């Protein structure tokens, strides 16, 4: 009996050792391969002028952009592949898993050559050390001056030199409204949302429009903590009051400042006053979007892809009334006189472990051409990331002009590696505040609740900011 136990233990130990050795061997291989590719890339770029890319393969990860992500991207890349001879392998990585997969690829050194990444994720990925600094190459595409400042900022990491992600396409949040509802309420769309006060007055007036065409309609609706982008919808109001997400030096949270409390209170107050539909807080972002499309909300905050879906017959979420009467206005101005909105989108990042870096850069360069940007953004219902094609699109009509304006003044968050985590902490607290405001939380809603929730958010954020490598 004892002998068999000993044998079993020996067997287990043998397996453990074998596996441990295997794991070490694996990581050795990784190190040596990244080392050698680093060399070949540097020698490669020295002779890149006359280099032919014929037969080189670039693997490119994209996320679910628009209704047909892979087909659309492949279509855009056809001329590029013919011209350069580079074979681009477009692979779809869903938004639900992209964070894990890109992070793991960056750490393990086994991944694609180029990947799409959300603008607010760039600093975190860059901090992992698995991505190429593109600053020596960006002059090829016009560098900083070719982009709006808020957008170029998303390529950077605070307190660090380097360009880590090239802006690919852009989105900004604006006000969507139902012109028929506004008309019935007797409000002029041109002045309905100029500042925070007029926006509230508009919503008050809309309260009397109880239904349109026999269908119940609420003045305003927004998703709660189930929406991944809750913070994008709340922060503009904080910025409007002069608040900030972090202090200027990014070392402390500023989300519990009096300005930030005022900003959050503005949006939360809409619930107890009956201006915002509490049942929307149960839904996620897409579900609330469909509620607006279905005609149950008169005012809603959304991105440009919704505008482009109005003409799509196959988007059956739209009710006829909403399809015909949807208008877009820039976000309201706050007491500071600025109209703030969140500007986001996606950037392109190049992996350090890529052994075809020059070809990978050719791909990024191609995707940064003005006409390619315009064509691709149009397929997605997004905005191009570059200034010139943005301008051209903004001149097409009034609704697009609203988005163009939003993008020019749009803001993103502090470009620090911990931002994603801080955003999660803020999202939880904003969600709690909205729940309380709608009478659904454990606490009774008051300004003290907002303050205490934001104090907690700040405490969490400070703990996250204090993280270190030590």
């Amino acid at each position: 009996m004892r002998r068999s136990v000993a044998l079993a233990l020996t067997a287990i130990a043998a397996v453990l050792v074998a596996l441990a050795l295997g794991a070490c061997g694996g990581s050795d291989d990784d190190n040596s391969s990244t080392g050698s590719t680093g060399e070949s890339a540097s020698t490669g770029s020295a002779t890149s002028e006359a280099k032919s890319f014929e037969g080189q393969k670039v693997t490119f990860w994209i996320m679910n952009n628009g209704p047909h992500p892979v087909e659309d991207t492949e279509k855009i890349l056809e001329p590029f592949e013919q011209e350069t001879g580079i074979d681009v392998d477009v692979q779809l990585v869903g938004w639900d898993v992209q964070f894990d997969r890109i992070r793991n690829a960056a750490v393990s050194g086994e991944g694609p050559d180029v990947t799409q990444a959300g603008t607010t994720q760039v600093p975190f990925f860059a901090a992992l050390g698995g991505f190429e600094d593109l600053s020596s190459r960006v002059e090829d595409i016009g560098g900083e001056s070719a982009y709006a400042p808020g957008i170029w900022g998303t390529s950077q990491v605070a307190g660090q030199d380097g360009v880590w992600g090239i802006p690919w396409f852009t989105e900004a949040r604006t006000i969507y409204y139902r012109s028929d509802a506004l008309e019935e309420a007797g409000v002029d769309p041109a002045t309905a949302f100029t500042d925070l006060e007029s926006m509230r007055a508009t919503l008050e007036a809309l309260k009397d429009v109880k239904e349109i065409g026999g269908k119940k309609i609420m003045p305003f609706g927004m998703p709660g903590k189930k929406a991944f982008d809750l913070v994008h919808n709340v922060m503009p109001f904080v910025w409007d009051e002069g608040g900030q997400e972090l202090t200027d030096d990014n070392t402390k949270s500023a989300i519990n400042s009096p300005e930030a409390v005022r900003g959050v209170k503005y949006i939360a107050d809409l619930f107890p006053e009956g201006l915002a539909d509490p049942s929307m807080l149960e839904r996620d972002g897409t579900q609330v979007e469909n509620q607006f499309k279905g005609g149950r909300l008169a005012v809603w905050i959304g991105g440009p892809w919704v505008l482009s879906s109005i003409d799509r017959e196959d988007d059956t979420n739209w009710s006829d009334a909403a399809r015909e009467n949807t208008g877009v206005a820039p976000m309201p101005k706050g007491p500071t006189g600025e109209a703030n909105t969140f500007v986001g989108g996606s950037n392109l990042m190049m992996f350090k472990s890529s052994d075809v870096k020059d070809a990978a850069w050719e791909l990024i360069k191609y995707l940064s051409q003005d006409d390619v940007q315009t064509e691709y953004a149009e397929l997605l219902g997004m905005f191009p990331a570059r200034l010139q094609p943005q301008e051209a699109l903004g001149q097409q009509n009034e609704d697009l002009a609203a988005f163009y304006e939003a993008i020019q003044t749009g803001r993103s968050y502090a470009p620090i590696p911990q931002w994603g985590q801080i955003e999660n902490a803020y999202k939880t607290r904003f969600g709690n505040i909205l729940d309380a405001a709608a009478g659904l939380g454990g606490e009774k809603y008051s300004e003290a609740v907002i303050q205490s929730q934001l104090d907690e958010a700040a405490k969490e954020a400070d703990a996250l900011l204090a993280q270190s490598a030590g």
Partner: protein
Amino acid sequence: MASIDTVTTSSGPAVPPDPPAQAGRARPRRGHGWRRDRFAYALIAPAVLFMVAIHLLPTLGGGVLAFKNLNTFTFSQLFGAPWAGLRNFEAILFDDANPLHNGFLNAAGNTAVYTVVTVAGVLIGGLLIALLLNREFPGQRIVRTLMLAPWVVPSFVVAVLWGFMWQSDVGIVNKVLVDYTGLLDDRPVWLLGPNSLWAIIIPSIWRGLPFCMLIFLAGLQAVPKELHEAAAIDGAGPIRRFFYITLPLLRPLIAVQLLIQVIYAAYQFTIPWIMLGTNPGEHADLLMTLIVRQSFSNNLFGFGAAASVIVMLAMSLWVVVWLAAFRRDLETQR
């Protein structure tokens, strides 16, 4: 999941009538055990290797990470990250200034309530339905088959379906409670606030019940009819017969169910995650959703690993308590 499987198999012999006797017969001579059983060892070797590779090693790896300072900045070093000693555990269990501490206590409390209510619901409900279905009535087979339906539905689908059913304005639950029957005047909101814990408990019971019922039904059918008949002749009513005959005979089955269901409930993840999102909120955040969120969304892998170790220890403690409470029941089977 894997840990549940191992527990199931280790407690497996308690279920059939007389396994200890059989096991005794299997190894009469101890001297040449290894040589005699070589073939058997060879047969189980692949399974052992597999378990070591996919179960034991990751568990040990997680145990190591629990003592590392693994965060956004050190993530790329993984096992090479700096040691943190017991700091992760200290922060979770005792450090009031650390936000993770409150989150953990809150999730532990929710998980405790969730586990107690869900397991009680599943066991009591399962037993009641098994008693009903144990009677002869027309259509008995069809009803039994239908009762098993929720068990076949994957947890993911359960969560998606109930997520729609709970919606306060258009969901079927409020339609029934408010619009059709008028039982309630106001439409309760299920997916937010204090009700959200019930929004995950009820579907969990709904899904766990059939399996439990199946086991009890099998147990009930093994209860000799003569016992009931004899007791009835002696004048015992149905309720006394239930408490003095049926329940004692079912004790081993109850014990096994209790063990499995508690561990399963304490490790519940799918239903809150799918129904309520990556952050179910303070009223419905369970330990598993907290750990996954902090680890994979917030890169606090050191925290996640330490919290997992704590949960694992708590579950081990539960197994010890369970063994102490039911050991005699399981042995008297002989």
